């Protein structure tokens, strides 16, 4: 562990991993509740197009990916509301458009851009620059602030959009906000976890936590703990066994899911007996 902290890039990567481990499950609980578990994936693909664009235009990848993903968030809500396209088809359109656009733009870009695209797909230990850390920190804090203000309304919309509307909550605005929050998480996670796997950190810890929990709040809290543990430990592990961090982090989260899913069987049985 000491050796690991000797490297500047590792310290930065660990902070970035902790940020994504903290905020990703917090958005994931809403996405899972709304049955939009794949929305994060769609956002990841759109952000990939942003990275490709950044290579092509020579702009900074994080802001370009953020803008592209935010536009994608508006677009998917627009497609779902205004056209007869079903939600899952709208998502599929994002997937294809994002990955095709990302590879296309990166291939058009000068130099070896398309090979460095790989580090954005599965994460990389060495790519978090000192300046990036500030951007990631600001994005993560803005997610927490937005959740502090709108979290309850998002919860009401996830529980029942009709009832939420009767309570005066602007359901469409909240849905768009949720997509934008997912887009922010994707951008925060793209450096260390990678765009293809970042949405797993939104969903897998939530799926693991809900094996045991009885309330929305406790699901969110336990999911954050699982998210933090798997992203930080997975990143450290990937340093020692020399693999990309994204797969290591996600496999660890899946291991948490498996352990809790098995442990939950006797626990639930006992609860039933006590009830």
């Amino acid at each position, binding site marked *: 562990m000491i050796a690991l902290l000797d490297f500047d890039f590792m310290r930065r990567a660990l902070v970035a991993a902790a940020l994504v481990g903290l905020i990703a499950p917090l958005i994931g609980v809403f996405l899972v509740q709304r049955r939009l578990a794949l929305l994060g994936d769609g956002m990841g693909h759109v952000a990939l197009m942003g990275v490709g664009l950044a290579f092509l235009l020579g702009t900074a990848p994080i802001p370009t990916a953020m803008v592209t993903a935010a536009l994608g968030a508006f677009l998917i809500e627009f497609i779902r509301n205004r056209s007869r396209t079903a939600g899952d088809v709208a998502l599929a359109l994002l997937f294809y458009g994002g990955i095709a656009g990302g590879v296309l733009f990166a291939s058009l870009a000068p130099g070896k851009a398309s090979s460095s695209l790989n580090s954005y797909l599965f994460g990389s230990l060495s790519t978090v620059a000192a300046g990036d850390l500030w951007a990631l920190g600001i994005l993560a804090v803005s997610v927490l602030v937005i959740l502090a203000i709108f979290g309850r309304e998002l919860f009401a919309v996830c529980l*029942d959009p009709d009832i939420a509307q009767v309570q005066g909550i602007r359901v469409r605005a909240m849905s768009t906000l949720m997509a934008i929050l997912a887009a922010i998480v994707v951008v925060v996670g793209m450096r260390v976890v990678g765009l293809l796997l970042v949405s797993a950190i939104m969903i897998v810890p939530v799926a693991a936590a809900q094996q045991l929990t*009885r309330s929305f709040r406790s699901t969110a809290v336990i999911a954050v703990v699982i998210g933090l543990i798997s992203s930080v430990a997975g990143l450290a592990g990937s340093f020692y066994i020399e693999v990309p961090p994204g797969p290591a982090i996600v496999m660890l989260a899946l291991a948490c899911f498996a352990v809790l899913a098995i442990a939950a069987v006797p626990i639930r049985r006992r609860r039933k007996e006590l009830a």
Partner: protein
Amino acid sequence: MTETIISIERLCVEFDGEHVLEDVTIDITAGEVIALLGPNGSGKTTLIRAILGLEQPGHGKISLFGTPIKRFKDWHRISLVPQRLPGASSIPVSVWETVMSGNIAPRSRWRPFSRAEKLSATQALHDVDLWDRRRDRLDALSGGQQRRVLVARALACNADVLVMDEPTAGLDAANVAALSALLTALKDQGKTIIVVTHELDDIEHLVTRAIVLGASKHHSVGFDGPPPVPGAFAHDHHHHHDAIIDKTPPVVGMQP
């Protein structure tokens, strides 16, 4: 003088050019318990959705507490009790969280839940006799208990009007009895209750008025007066503009 709480005047709602509701005129006053009856496809659900502002009327007017629905702001006074929560089975949601969700509104965005809001949720859970289950997952409760939780949710925000969609559907006799006792208590507290139902027998004793939407959209007819005798529904073709039949025998249209 009782307050007119819901006033519907010549309401028409259409989907894709098809009239689901046509020329419906109904006034509902404070403290009434209305049974909204009619066969499938007669527009019962559309009518309550229109009252709740979830469907836009094509023509006609809806006023809530004397305010046209477009300008109505006091949505916490009206609450929908659905059959079940659509999202309730994905992430665990506790009974307490469900009931407290009745207090979520844009006006309370910038502050935590108040003491008064927590107290009213506590009271509501006692009213439906499920305080002991507050920490349980909503979907661990029986269908009848879940429906009582949703009633508590509506009570938690101190709604004056409860709109209930098929509250007794799929419940066994014991649960129907519990729900019916709860509704009786709410009626005694002066709540206005609108119940969409197929099974009038279950709640007949507390219904003050039944409104029947006909299978033919042109004959949505209601009546004032005591609850109808089950099976006594006859039919009235003469009311072309969907009148409330005033104080006449409980004779209403069920089919064209």
